[in-house]
């Protein structure tokens, strides 16, 4: 189970450049669906990789679903060599994504984000239109219901106040 506040506090305190996507982003916009992990798109510039490593060092990041005891090193070389990482941590399940289908990398998504404030922190979250677009682009049958809910959220949100 992800500890959303603690994860965000840790990452924001280390000034990690990130964008909230996925189920938690849907929650930010008003979704009633429950998600059990936190999906984040992270900037892959060298400085941000260093900050990300520092932020989660000590939180025991490890590939989710992998057998225990593998020689997994949480360092910049590992991040540089890969792109998307599905991790377990002491703070819960965390997906660190270098890019997402239909959306691209951090720099591509940044113009399509909004700043949200929670727990005294400011962080960036994918906007609703782009969230719908990337969900469609993912093309997974399981996302159809999520897409439907996001469309309903958009309708309800854009209704004039009664």
């Amino acid at each position, binding site marked *: 189970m992800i500890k959303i*506040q603690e994860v965000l506090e840790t990452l924001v305190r280390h000034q990690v450049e990130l964008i909230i996507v996925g189920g938690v982003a849907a929650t*930010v916009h008003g979704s009633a669906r429950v998600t059990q992990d936190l999906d984040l798109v992270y900037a892959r510039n*060298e400085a941000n990789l260093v900050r990300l490593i520092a932020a989660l060092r000590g939180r025991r990041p490890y590939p989710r679903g992998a057998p225990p005891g593998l020689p997994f090193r949480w360092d910049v070389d590992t991040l540089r060599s890969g792109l998307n990482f599905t991790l377990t941590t002491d703070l819960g399940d965390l997906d660190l994504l270098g890019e997402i289908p239909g959306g*691209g990398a951090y720099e591509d998504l940044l113009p399509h984000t909004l700043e949200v404030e929670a727990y005294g922190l400011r962080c960036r979250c994918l906007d609703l239109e782009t969230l719908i677009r990337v969900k469609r682009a993912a093309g997974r049958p399981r996302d159809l219901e999520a*897409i*439907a809910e996001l469309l309903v959220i958009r309708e309800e949100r854009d209704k004039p106040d009664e």
Partner: protein
Amino acid sequence: MPIHARVLDAALRICRGRRGWTFRPAEIVASLPELNASSVRTHVMSRCCVNAPPHHPHRWPYFRRVERGVYQVLPPLRKRRSEASPVAGPTAGLAPGAARTPRAVQEMGRRTPVAPPGPDHMRAGRALLSVEVRERGGRYVAASAEFAPGIEGTSLESVVSRVVSLARERLRKAGGPPVRLSAELRFEAGPGLEPSDPLVAAYAKDIDRTLIRENLRLSVEERLEKLQGWAEAMDEIRGAAWRSRRGAGKT
């Protein structure tokens, strides 16, 4: 169009307008109001600048910093045709009922010609114009960085037609040999109208809107705390079920 291409395109348009190849980042930011200003500056000053510090693993060799606050388009790119030269064909392709759509985004582009090689003056290329059309009080307003002020009309078709005419006129004035043009309209509907997806529509019918409305009354933090609460509750229930199965197994 990726942001780096749009930044280059904006720089080329600005520089050609003043017949010089230097510009300031603020000019690019101002010409791309729909993009995040910080991202635009990052691209001008770092990701697309050949003599910037190497903060990014991948860069595009578009500009050079010549002095504080002044950047220059590199010579190999100066003959490149601006991507934002817009032309579009007829308005065929608009979805039925498009005029009733509260909000639409239309993209008019020019495809690379696929006809057999023609006369020498035919030229392949690609240009794109993004135009956002909104309905306001029964009138339609088209807004684009290319046309200021916006274009208004009483119907979606008339606004699109005027945008097309203006785009053709701009292209004609820009000079150069004639090109074969085709149009591609991509229609993105606003609330209440979505490109048909029967499965999504079927799911949408069963969405409990009372839950959505309840969530929309909450702040972002309250929504996240509600999610956290549910996640913890589910965790507890799952644990209880597991303990229950273990206990049943023992008896």
